[in-house]
């Protein structure tokens, strides 16, 4: 649907109540796959491997091979379930979901059906601006990922028009937890922002638990957004669509907003919504129809006979519960208070996904303001310029060290930025770079005074102006001194000394 045909968002909200439901897949970062000893590409140690090199007879579905459940994946799934406020099943079973597709090696996916490992949870989610919502969680279940298809020969990279397709089974068998919400009512105009904030909260939980790399751009975190509208005053839920391929936080918000506007436009004209899968297109900012989906999709689920039920002990569950980190919403409230940030400052950090970095930098001794400034400022700029991930550029310890050097007066902001470039280039710790590059501020007043006297002597007109009380004229002298010092001087101290000398010299 063209942009012009969409209904205005506010108007759509007047006529309809949006109901959303979110399915989030979290790739676990276990060393090996869900059911085999093959290395797991969702663990950063194996990221980016050549196609079909992280495979075993099990993930290739070779005849005779059998799955064995990865205990670490079970523990991480339980931790995630607990963090989502879920009950953990005393006994849960795997089931086969049967369908033919070439990226699915066995032509069935081992998943969980009627007995998920975690169920009945709720999660507090805070949207931008500080409003919070409780999101009802229906279930979180374990399953294996499918392989990846690359369609070759077409112009779009889609299967339509392709000449052939290549299959990479590296991803086949990667452990996933699928988290399914109940229908979410009452978000109203906040529905798009809430969808985004919900997924961001799951990302924060996954990172805090250390169970996933949780990077959307790598597919560690994937979201399918269900959206339906019902006319104001109507009890019955409208027909929903499920939007897939939503690969960034921003696009979750945009996709939900788009679907609300698209569906409203159709319904307002008396049309009906088709129950279907829709694909989000980042470039056009629109969704397009995928395959029709009905509740009668028949996957012929039955209990996986190759696996025994997962029966975690009460001790294990309590052990994992005791090890849970603070809930993200509570943690954000605490940190915001401790740091004394304004709403805007705090959101600047949180929305950049830098909460952990700032917290660790503060823990390493930096002031919250300095930590925030370096991470969201210079480091983010360097990351954008080099198209790298900001968290890979420096460690919180390095940033804290840099801030300490600035506080001690060893570095000016300008020098500190040069040091940071050295850190990013891998030249060592800030102190090592200061030493190696000779970047420290010249704090020897003797050297400064000599330079000032020389500058004043060569610019008698300026000296005269200063003596006449035209203090702003000192700028020219300060500039000359800073140049002579190659920038390694504290401009404020130079200014003080210039005024002193101007008064003192004959």
């Amino acid at each position: 649907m063209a942009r012009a045909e969409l209904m205005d968002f506010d108007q759509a909200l007047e006529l309809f109540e949006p109901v959303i439901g979110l399915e989030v897949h979290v790739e676990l970062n276990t060393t090996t796959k869900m059911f085999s000893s093959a290395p797991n590409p969702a663990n950063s140690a194996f990221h980016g491997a050549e196609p079909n090199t992280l495979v075993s007879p099990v993930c290739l579905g070779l005849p005779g091979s059998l799955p064995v459940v990865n205990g670490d994946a079970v523990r991480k799934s339980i931790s995630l379930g607990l963090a989502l406020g879920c009950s953990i099943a005393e006994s849960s079973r795997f089931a086969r979901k049967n369908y033919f597709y070439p990226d699915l090696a066995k032509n069935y996916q081992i998943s969980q059906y009627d007995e998920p490992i975690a169920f009945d949870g709720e999660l507090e989610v805070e949207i931008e601006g500080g409003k919070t919502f409780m999101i009802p969680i229906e279930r979180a279940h374990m399953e294996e990922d499918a392989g990846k298809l690359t369609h070759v020969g077409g112009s779009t990279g889609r299967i339509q028009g392709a000449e052939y397709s290549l299959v990479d089974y590296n991803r086949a068998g990667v452990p996933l937890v699928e988290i399914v919400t109940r229908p979410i009512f009452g978000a109203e105009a906040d529905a798009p922002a809430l969808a985004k904030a919900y997924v961001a909260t799951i990302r924060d939980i996954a990172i805090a638990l250390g169970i996933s790399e949780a990077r959307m751009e790598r597919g560690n975190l994937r979201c399918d957004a269900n959206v339906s509208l019902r006319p104001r005053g109507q009890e019955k839920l409208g027909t929903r669509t499920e939007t897939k391929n939503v690969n960034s936080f921003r696009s979750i918000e945009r996709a939900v907003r788009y679907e609300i506007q698209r569906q409203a436009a159709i319904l307002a004209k008396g049309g009906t919504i088709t129950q279907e899968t829709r694909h989000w297109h980042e470039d056009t900012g629109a969704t397009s129809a995928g395959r029709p989906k009905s509740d009668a999709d028949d996957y012929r689920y039955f209990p996986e006979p190759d696996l025994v039920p997962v029966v975690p002990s009460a001790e294990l569950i309590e052990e994992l519960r005791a090890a849970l980190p603070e809930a993200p919403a509570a943690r954000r409230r605490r940190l915001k208070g401790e740091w004394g940030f304004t709403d805007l400052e705090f959101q600047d950090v949180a929305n950049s996904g830098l909460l952990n970095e700032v917290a660790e930098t503060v823990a390493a001794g930096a002031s919250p303001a300095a930590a925030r400034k370096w991470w969201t400022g210079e480091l983010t700029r360097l990351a954008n310029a080099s198209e790298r991930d900001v968290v890979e550029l420096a460690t919180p310890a390095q940033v804290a060290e840099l801030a300490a050097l600035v506080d001690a007066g060893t570095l000016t902001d300008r020098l500190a930025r040069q040091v940071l470039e050295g850190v990013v280039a891998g030249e060592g710790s800030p102190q090592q770079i200061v030493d190696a590059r000779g970047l420290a501020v010249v704090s020897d007043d003797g050297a400064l005074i000599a330079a000032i006297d020389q500058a004043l002597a060569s610019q008698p007109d300026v000296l005269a102006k200063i003596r006449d009380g035209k203090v702003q004229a000192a700028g020219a002298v300060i500039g000359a001194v800073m140049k002579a010092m190659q920038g390694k001087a504290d401009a404020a101290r130079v200014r003080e000394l210039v005024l002193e000398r101007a008064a003192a010299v004959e």
Partner: protein
Amino acid sequence: MSDELIRLTAAELGEKLAAGDVSSVEATRAHLDRIAAVDGAVHAFLHVDGERAVETAADIDRRRAAGEALGPLAGVPIAIKDVLVTKGMPSTSGSRILEGWIPPYDATPVTKVRAAGLVPLGKTNMDEFAMGSSTEHSAYGPTHNPWDLDRIPGGSGGGSAASVAAFEAPLALGSDTGGSIRQPAHVTGTVGVKPTYGAVSRYGSIALASSLDQIGPVTRTVLDAALLHDVIAGHDPLDSTSLNMAWPSMAEAVRRADVSGLRIGVITELDGEGFQPGVRQRFHEALELLERNGAEIVEVSAPHFEYSIAAYYLILPAEASSNLAKFDSVRFGLRVTPDGAGTVEQVMAATREAGFGPEVKRRIILGTYALSAGYYDAYYGSAQKVRTLVQRDFDAAFAKVDVLASPTAPTTAFKFGEKLADPVSMYLNDIATIPANLAGVPGISVPTGLAPEDGLPVGIQFLAPAREDARLYNVGGALEQLLVAEWGGPLLGKAPDLTAHELFATEEGAL
């Protein structure tokens, strides 16, 4: 010499090898010669790798000469059912769809057999994907019963049973999903054991029905079965359903066999209508023999066994329809591209159409239907309830007796083609063997003689509680000893001389 070597039991051959009376290379060559001589007529093997077998045998001989401590079966040749994947050796499961596929790994039972120093000769014929009771559903032609080449050798493991009955191998591995080890043993005068579910790893066994499949020994004597059982049993971390427990020696159970005071329950539901008179006659004679030697024979009822076949033919096809979905041409095996190429769906469909035989297609369709939304509860769900009831029948029976007994199968070997047109009558062959698979309990079939009316072999089946496999070897070993004493020699001594059929033998497999 060669004929003597092939007629030795595995235990005897193992002793001669250990004593240095014979080398593994000699024993292996004797069996390869036998295969060359008779397998053209029997067709027990789908693949024979003589060269590799002799190399393996020579390696064992070298290790023995170097003083290495070897197991009791080291150097003894073995045939492997084609359902088990073997590294570097074709593994088709009797299907066209796997023709030419060479697995990159060994099934765990094969790994264990190799580690114990046994010498794999090749792969034996079977009904396609182990679906059948006659080997007539093999994509590569049927195996012939060494007792009468016009008759079936049982199935699905007819190849393994025929190979030991025809003295082509002293030992073989089989798989038993509903009787595929025990029923062929019954019709070929051999011994077959289905261990407790989980006793032997299923890793590398091309799955038919995962909750029913079990790998086990196929041999000519109970002691040989026990020796092989001791080699292949044990926990495997690659199979989640494999039992993690310490097993007693089955071979010891045979050597100490004693039935005095043993309570044997005769299942009344498996001792009447539908069973051939000669089968029942030999069954009751065997029971009387055991009774005369101290066993107590009691009648027990298993009222839900009559629903076993119905439940089995829902659970098996349901699991099989899913297990066989992987045969889609994408990663291995046959690929058929329809005229004018096509989509991946068309290639998958054309491959499965060409690669699967009619019995396989029948069961895939049955299973797909049974699992469909709206039918699941009525079919798969009900079948699982029957399964629970059958397990309860066993529990109640084993509260009263130590082992249960029945004829292994209703009839002696039938002629080729007799039951092909009527799947249900084919399915009824397994009426006595299926309950054990549904309940996961172990079973053995031991020869009891020849049916008077047709002179063909028949067997008795004993069943024991789960994990009590040793009881089967005790009672089976005792009965075998008593019968062989009565007969004045092993039953297979009465089998026809197959070398008369030498003219049918092909050059293939000859050294």
